């Protein structure tokens, strides 16, 4: 685990926009209200990955 407090250290795995997933996961990007609405409509839990580009 890399703590945010180590602010000057580039902390996480760098990623560009997510490519189409080989696992077939369809990602919603940076839109919690949209994901929540979809989760409620489909009665599915949300998997959330919080990441940083640094």
């Amino acid at each position, binding site marked *: 685990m890399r703590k945010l407090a180590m602010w*000057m250290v580039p902390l996480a795995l760098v990623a560009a926009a997510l490519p189409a997933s080989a696992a077939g996961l369809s990602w919603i990007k*940076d839109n919690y209200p949209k994901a*929540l609405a979809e989760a409620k409509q489909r009665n599915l839990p949300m998997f959330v*990955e919080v990441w*940083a580009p640094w």
Partner: protein
Amino acid sequence: MRDLLDHSDLAGYAGQFVWLEISYDAPENRAFLTKYGAEATPTFFVIAPQDEQVTAMQPGAMSLDQLKQFLDRGASGAYARNQTPADAALMRGDNLRAQQPADAVTAYREALRLAPTNWPRRQLAETSFVEALQDNSQWQQCAETSASEAAHMTRDDLFASAVVAGLWCLASTDRSPWSDAALQKLQPLAEEALTLPATVRDHRDEIYRTLMKLSVARNDNAAAAKFGDRWLAELDAIKPDSDEQRSALDIARVENVQAFGKPERILPELKTSELAMPNNYIASLRLAQMELAAKHFDDTVAACDRGLARAPGANGRAWLLQIKARALREEGKTPEARRALQAALQAAQEIPNQGSREMNVDSIKKALQQ
């Protein structure tokens, strides 16, 4: 870790969740980050749609097996299926952990107290308990619990996670008789974790980093150099097959040098990466950090300017401008350094994550007062 989320073994989970990625850098995520918190990166949540409660939470990297168990546990919690009282306490701990770590400690302790014989999540609860003690800055209890629990754990990825948390706690506190005693127990476990195939790259990096830091704190620079050499040799043996992997390797190289060592040693790899990832400002930022550490001030400013031209977000702008200001000040260019800091302050005020925003704003304001 992101490669893992693309793994074909996860195909069976595709229709069982709504998949959301949240970037720290995106301003539209401020409400989510304020509500759920996340003090490490990456951090993973499973959230039930009905009441928006967290049913599983994990800061830090996971192996594929850990990730599948995490998804199963999160889904089980979301539907409240097949839950024992210990499962419910474990879920409560996950729900509390990001923002109320003291209460999470209590919940995980309760999960272990309620755990039936042969409870399949005992090892997970033990590791989560140690990590929550870490989150709650209970360094001594965290390190001592890690040493005692990990000793009898099955040697898998959770074992490595528990050891990593214990080492982190030891490295977060000053040297003392209790910390020396805990290190004596934890270091062999850490060495053992390094021999296990289940220990993921992030955990290997963290073990090396903390062992180096703990060696330096005990004035044992020879041991720090030995761990540092082993670590760099492992990193150099990996041929990156993606920008993500290249970046992860470079992050580890920087952490290695920050723990102990000469920055010049990794400058060639960082320069290669900056050229290989022409749109990635972080590659320039890492290079700038190490040029600054090597006292190459003109090269630092140049790397910062290249990074700023690569469209960084608020965090990136704030960091690059602070590094640039430090290099300019070292060169005696005080007015230019001040201008860079003022621009950094403006960028820092736009950082979405509250904790990161406040930390950067405070740091820049202090630098401006000097």
